[in-house]
């Protein structure tokens, strides 16, 4: 039995500790916003925040993060600047990769609240969006940064 703290709630899962966090979240806990796509930490679609840091849940053993705070997209408030910007800039197409990419962006913006275009390109270069929403991802990150700055730097 594994105990995980997901989005502020303690949850129990009947899974071996070496099961990837991705599959415990999806199959045992029913949190399907965390997406499977490659299983080798190449695409970023399974990204979650672990103690605020973006990690690829397909290569994290669930047993290793039992004491950590795990955040999925549902754990961000609906008025979170990244969510607001993603809707305002109409980013998603199929949308499958977006929760992972948004969490990746949340981590990045927490470290670089006023990023340059080049910093955005560098930071977001290791996630895959097959639909090709990249131009809008870029705009949404800029907008989220501006919103956060207006709100006094808190996101």
């Amino acid at each position, binding site marked *: 039995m594994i105990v995980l703290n997901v989005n502020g709630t303690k949850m129990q899962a009947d899974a071996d500790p070496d099961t990837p966090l991705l599959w415990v979240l999806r199959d045992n806990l029913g949190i399907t916003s965390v997406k*499977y796509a490659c299983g080798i930490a190449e695409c970023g679609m399974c990204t979650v925040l672990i103690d605020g840091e973006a990690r690829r849940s397909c290569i994290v053993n669930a047993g290793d993060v039992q004491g950590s705070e795990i955040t999925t997209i549902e754990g961000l408030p609906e008025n979170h600047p990244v969510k607001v910007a993603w809707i305002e800039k*109409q980013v*998603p197409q*199929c949308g499958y990769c977006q929760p992972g990419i948004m969490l990746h962006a949340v981590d990045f913006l927490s470290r670089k609240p006023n990023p340059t275009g080049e910093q955005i390109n560098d930071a977001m270069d290791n996630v895959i969006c*097959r*639909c090709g929403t990249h*131009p*809008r991802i*870029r705009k949404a990150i800029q907008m989220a940064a501006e919103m956060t700055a207006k709100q006094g730097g808190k996101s």
Partner: protein
Amino acid sequence: MNTHITRRDFLKKTSLVIAAAALPGGVNLFHVSPALAGADAPFKPHAFLEIAADDTITVWVGQTNLGQGTHTGIPMIIADELDAAWEKVQVKMALAAEPFKSPVWHMQATGGSSSIRHRWDLLRKVGAAARQMLVEAAAEQWGIPAEKCVTKDGSVTHPDGRSLTFGQLTEAAGKRPVPEDPPLKDSKEYRIIGTQRKRLDIPDKVMGKTVYGIDFTVPGMCIAVVARPPRYGASPQSYDEKAAMAVKGVIKVLPLENRIAVCAETTYAAMKGRNALNIKWSEGSQPNLNDDTLDALFKEHLGKPGAVAKNDGDVKKALEQAAQTMEQSYKLPYLSHAQAEPINCTAHVEKERCRIWTPTQGQTDTQLTASKLTGLPIEKVEVMTLPAGGGFGLRGEQDPVEDSVLLSKTLNRPVKVMWTREDDFANDRFRPASQCRIKAGLDKDGRVMAWSHTVAAPSVMSRLMPEYVKDGIDGDAVSGITDMPYDLPNLLVNYVMVNSPVTVGWWRSVGYSVNAFAVESFMDELAHAAKKDPVQFRLDHMEKGGRPYNVLSLLAEKAGWGTPVPEGRARGVAATSCFESFAAHMAEVSVSKEGKITVHKMVCAIDCGTAVYPDAIRAQAEAGVVMGLSVAFHEKVRFENGGVKTANYDDYPVLTLSDVPETEVHIAQNNLKAGGVGEPVFPSVAPAVANAVFKATGVRLRELPFKRELLIRG
């Protein structure tokens, strides 16, 4: 096209069918509002539309939501003709059913950019018919002629200013006959079509609430992962069932023809169980097949005459008379769809019915597949199309449907078949590779007199719709050549079908994705040989004032063609006409001494007829650039030892953010029939870049993906 069927019969047919239903088991995935759930006697004149007493308007869509925007564009068309208040409109996915079949193809499928272009009249009539019924109901109540009533924003208004909402009129309107030929709006009267709207499916996608096929669960379900042959034609010779069953959570190991399924309580257990099988496979049909043998096969076929797909004028004679002739070859690889969500399908076969939940692009085929395997009549196969994490043509394939139906039948419980990413690459139905040779002749004024084009490529149609392959010609394999947007007096197109174990399938823009690269690269080579400007040279071969001519002119104007190019950069263009639309691209590039190409800017111009949902068109066009560049720079499936070598995204890199240029999209304004969007914005991207690279370096890139080593200087 069979649009006459639509006009005459659609309302009669559709009014009889209550096709739409929410998901069983109380799981409502599609924005069902509490207000609607409580409303009684909604007005449902046909399968596409219902209006509730509380004014909620529900548009039922039969087209797959792949993120292309049609789940907003389709409601926009219906709502406009209805004069609905847009904020009252919601969209839901319907179960597969007769009324949702394409009036052109007579099957329900999402592909070929057909969702709107095949239903342009149909969808408008759906809205217009309902509007007419609501107006007649109000007029009757007020005792005035219907012509005196005005509709706007979900209400009917009396000349004295009184009004009734659509919701208030539903009961009376529902008793009226459905008009067969309701008048349609003049495009000047559109209030929703052509306007900026927010996509209806985006909030749920951003909040993580969208349930894709892969996320779907149903009580009692188990998950199956299937070991498929690692080489074409291979089958299992031995496997360790005990070891798989020993994995915690594994329920059953079931061999199916040439593959073995492991069914388990969880996905991870099924994956571990499959690994434990330790299957020994036979060597397959062509154990030596690899990149080199395939390349040689194409080369060999290119030397054959093939079948004549088009023969206008007298190419042989014209080539003899030409002032100048040129000959070149082009080469394109097999491509994977590499869509984000791996292939999956959930099925539950019961005694009297079969239910299927899957992100299919081919609903009718899914029904037919399940019907055949279960022996149930087609109407007993319920197909609920779930939102798809990309598709690009792959999701019309029925492999996961077959497996989930067979397994559910055997296990007598719902089964979700899941492919891993490795399964996806190994079992993809690839975009055909292609090699071609073109010979053309210019007259003394630099006009193209003759064009002779031979293509060696596999045929998709031979597998999927063999009845459309006649005299050795697959029309898709030569599309973009036989119908290139140029008027040429002498055009000969030969097709040599390449047969190999590598299975090919539909892929974004189909034949155009291949052939536009060759045609548009060679047009550029001819323009250079004729010492003409590449835009002017193309225009000179197009009908003046025609749509391809106008869209290329629009591109040239908006992209500042002919204006000074920033230091160190060069521009290139390309154009294509396909899926009833017309598109062109301009690329602005620079090339470093080390051969690195930087695309600084892309400009796209598209004429897709009436621009129903401009922001979705822009989104598709931006995305077409990203995918087009990805294909130009990176994508190629590799083969070895009789099977697919490419296994995951690490050896099939796709374009990422730092290589995505600034992109401008310009949409031609007209009120013509709506054409396709998702496909036409793709083919001219790669050739525009190749042509810009030539301008920058003098080096022609005639193979995709581009070979950087050809560009290293000094």
